[in-house]
C-alpha cells in the first residue's frame, strides 16, 4: 500500500497565554501540546486522518475509528460494522452530523452509533480501497483505488468517474475535496482533476514539464503528476505532490 503521510501521534495545540503574559514570563511556551497515543486510549499510533466535530475529535487509525469525547477515547471496529480496521479518510456531513470513513475495505457511515458499510460488492462503490471522502450537500464524493465515485444520498444513485469519462489517465484517486461549485480529485500519477458542478465538465491540472525528478517550469503548474492530497477553500486550491 502506498500510504499517505502518517502521523505518529495526534497533537492538540492551544494558545495558552496572552502575549503580555508571555512577555512577563518569556520562559513559558506559547503553545500547550497534548499528545495522544495508545498510552492514553488511542487504538493505534498510526493515524491517517483527524477530524474535529464539535466537542468530539475523530481519529482514523490503522486499528479502528476512534472518537475522543468527554476526555476519553472510544473505538469502533469491524465488530461494530466498520468496513475495515484500517481507516484512511474522514468527512463530516455538517447537515446531518453523520461521519463518513474511508477504509481499506469499503466506505462506512457512522450515524448516531449505527454503522452502514458500502463495498464494491454490496453497492455501486467502484473499489474497496477508499483513500478519500468528502461530503457536499446530498452527495458523498469518494476517492478510491479505482477512480472516483459520487453517491447521491437522496436517490441512492452511484456515479463513477474513471478513465472512461474523465481525463483521469491513472485511476488511483488519493483524495477529494468537494464544494457546491467545484470538486477536486488528487490523482496518483494523473495530476489534479477539477469537476465543475454547474457544467458537468472536467478539467485537469498537470505538471507542465512532465519530469519526474526535476522542475523545469517553475510556478507554471503542478510540481509533480503524483498528487496525494487536495483542499479547496475560499476559491484557493491546495495540492500536495510527491516531489
Amino acid at each position: 500500500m502506498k500510504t499517505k503521510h502518517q502521523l505518529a501521534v495526534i497533537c492538540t495545540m492551544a494558545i495558552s497565554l496572552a502575549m503580555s503574559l508571555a512577555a512577563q514570563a518569556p520562559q513559558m511556551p506559547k503553545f500547550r501540546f497534548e499528545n495522544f497515543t495508545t498510552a492514553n486510549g488511542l487504538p493505534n499510533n498510526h493515524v491517517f486522518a483527524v477530524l474535529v466535530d464539535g466537542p468530539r475529535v475523530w481519529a482514523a487509525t490503522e486499528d479502528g475509528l476512534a472518537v475522543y469525547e468527554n476526555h476519553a477515547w472510544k473505538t469502533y471496529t469491524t465488530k461494530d460494522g466498520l468496513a475495515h480496521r484500517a481507516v484512511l479518510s474522514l468527512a463530516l456531513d455538517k447537515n446531518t452530523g453523520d461521519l463518513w470513513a474511508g477504509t481499506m475495505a469499503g466506505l462506512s457511515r457512522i450515524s448516531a452509533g449505527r454503522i452502514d458499510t458500502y463495498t464494491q460488492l454490496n453497492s455501486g462503490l467502484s473499489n474497496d480501497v477508499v483513500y478519500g471522502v468528502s461530503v457536499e450537500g446530498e452527495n458523498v464524493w469518494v476517492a478510491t483505488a479505482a477512480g472516483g465515485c459520487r453517491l447521491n444520498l437522496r436517490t441512492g444513485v452511484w456515479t463513477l468517474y474513471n478513465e472512461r469519462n474523465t481525463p483521469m489517465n491513472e485511476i488511483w484517486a488519493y483524495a477529494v475535496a468537494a464544494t457546491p461549485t467545484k470538486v477536486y480529485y488528487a490523482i496518483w500519477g494523473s495530476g489534479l482533476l477539477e469537476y465543475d458542478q454547474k457544467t458537468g465538465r472536467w478539467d485537469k491540472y498537470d505538471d507542465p514539464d512532465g519530469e519526474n525528478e526535476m522542475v523545469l517550469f517553475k510556478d507554471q503548474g503542478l510540481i509533480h503528476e503524483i498528487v496525494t492530497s487536495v483542499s479547496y477553500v475560499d476559491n484557493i486550491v491546495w495540492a500536495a505532490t510527491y516531489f
Partner: protein
Amino acid sequence: MSQRNQHRNRTAAASALLAFLGVSGLILSPGLGRPVHAGEMRPSVESISYASPLEVLLSPDGSRLYVLCQGGEDIRVLDAQNFAVIKKIPVGAVPRGFSFSPDGAKLYVTNSSEDTVSVIDTAKLEVVATWKTGAEPSSVVAEPGGRRLFVANRISNDISVLDAATGVEQKRLSAGRGASYLTLAPDGSKIYATHVYPNPSAYRTAPESEITVIDAARAVVVDRIPLHGIAHAFHIDFSPDGRLGATTGYHPKNLVTLAHLEHGGAFEDTITLFGADLGRTVEVPLDELERYASQPFGVAIAPDKSRIYISSGGSELVTVIDLPRLMQYIRLHPGGFAHDLSASANYVVTRIPVGLNPRGITLSRDGRRLFVANRLDDTLSVIDTHANKVVSTVRLEGPKNVSALRHGEQTFYTSRYSFQGQIGCANCHIDSTFDGLTWNLEPDGFGRNPVDNKLIEGIKDTEPYKWTGTNPDIPTECGPRTEKYFWRSEQYDDITLTDLSLYVRSLNPRPNRWKLIGHEVTPAQERGKAIFERTIDKFGNQIAFYNRCIFCHSGPKGTSQELFDDVGTSTPLDNTSRLKAPPLTNIALTAPYLHNGSAKSLEEIWTIYNPQEKHGRTADLTKDELNDLVEYLRTR
C-alpha cells in the same frame, strides 16, 4: 333441503367456480365476474370507496375528533361529544399519518402515494398548502418551536426536515428501513421514529429494528435504540412525564421452521418499553396461550401511568395493561420474559373486542375515553376506560354493503382463521406488501429451503406462485397451502377464499419512485436497459438465450412465468434448483434477494452469487455497467 345440504351445495358450486377460474386463469379480476356473497348481489368493486379510518386524534382542546380516512382520502372532523360530522376535508392520495402544529392551528397530513404533506387550517378546515416530501411519507410531527416539520418516509428510509413556514425541504436524515411513525417526546426535545421493515442484517440472523432518536432543535439524529428481534415496529407513546416510552412490534420467529403454531407459533406480539423509568429496553409479550394480540399497532399510555392500551389489527381487540403491575413484573424478572406466554396474565387486565382491523388509538386528555379507528369496518370504537367497555360505536359515512373486495381485505388482515387466532396474511405482508425476511416453511421439509418473502403487489397474472412454482394459481396459494401449513386451522369457505383471492389480485404496484416524471430515463437507466436486453456480450459472442436477462425476466412484470433449472444460486439446503423467475415489480424495495434471501442488495446478486454465470452473463461487465444495470432494474 336442510341447511347443511344448502351449504354443501353452495360450497360445491363455489368450488367448481374456483376450479374453473383457477384453471382458466380468469380469477375474478374486477372487470370479470364477481362472486355472489350468501345469495346477495353486491355492488361493483370499482365503484365503492370505503372510509377506512386509519388514525384518530383529538383536537388540543378536546372538542373535536379528527379521523384520517385512508380509503376516502379525506380527514373527517367530528364533534367529540356527539360525533356529528362537522366537515370532510379531501387530502392527497392514500393518507397515512397526521398531527397538529404546536399551537393547534394546523393539521399536517402525509399522503403516502403522492409523496406530499397536506397542510390543513384547523379554523377554516381546508387544505391551505401541499408540500413535497420523500418517498411514501407515513407520519409527520412539528417540533415545539414551530420552525420545522419532520416527516418519516417509508420507502426512502429517511426523515425529511421541512421548513414549517414554507414547506421547503431543508435536509434528509438517515432513518432505519421503513421509517413510518414519529412521536414527539413530552418535553419537546426529541423525536422518536419507528420502522415497519427490519434493518439489513446478516443472512439468517435474527431481525433487528431501531428507534431513531432525533434532537428536535438541531434536527440531527443523536441516538438509535436497537430493537433486537423486532422486525416491524409501529406507534410510540410516552407517559406525560416523558420517563416511559412504549412501542408496538412484531417479533417473528423466522429462523425456525414455521410449523408450530400449536406451540405458540410464528410471532410474538409485543410492546417494547424504554426510557428513564427503566434505563433499558424491555420487550413485553402481549400474547397468552389461546388469546393472542396479533398485529399490535396503536399504543397509548394513560396520563396517570395506570394503564397502557394497545390495538391489535389482526385480533380485532384492544389489550389493557395494568402498568404498575407490569413494572413490578419487570423488576421481578430482570432476565427478560419476551418469549413467555404465561407472563401476560400477570399484567393484562382485559382484552376488549372492537371493530375490524383496529389501528390508531388516542386517549382523551383525562384518560376517561379511548378512541379506536377500525380501518376495515369504517367505525370508531369509544371505550370507557373505567368500565373497560366499548360504550359507543361510531359509524362513519360510507357504503353499508361489504363488497367482495372489502371482504377479501378483511380476510387478509384478520387473524381469526389461524390456529388460536395467532396470525393473518398481513403478519408477513405488512400493509399488503412484504416483510424483508427469509422464512423456513414446513412443506419443503424441516430446515429445508429457507425462502425470501416476496412482494405481493402486482402478482396477478404471474402464476405459478411460490419460488418453486408449485402453486398454480392464487386460490391455491392463498387457500389450501396457507390453511394447512400456516393457519393449521379451519378452512376458508369458498366464498371467503374467492374474496381473498380477489383482494390479492387487486393489489397494484405502488408508483415506482425511480422512474422520472413523464417516464423519461436517465442516461444510466438507458444504458442499463440496453444491458438487460442485450443478446451479444462485449466480446461479440452470442449470449445463450437462457442466460439473457430479458429471456427469463420478460414481459411487463419481468417474469416469463417459467421455471428454470439451476441459476447457480441453490445451496445444500434446497430441495430443488428449479426455480421460477420472479417478477421484478418494485424490485428496488424488496431486499434481500434470490430465492433464499442470501443477496443483501441487487449488486450482490452478481458480485457474489453468480460465480458460474448461470444467472445472466455479467462477468464481462465493468463496475460502471453493473451500476447501470442496477439503475435500470430500480425502474421496474
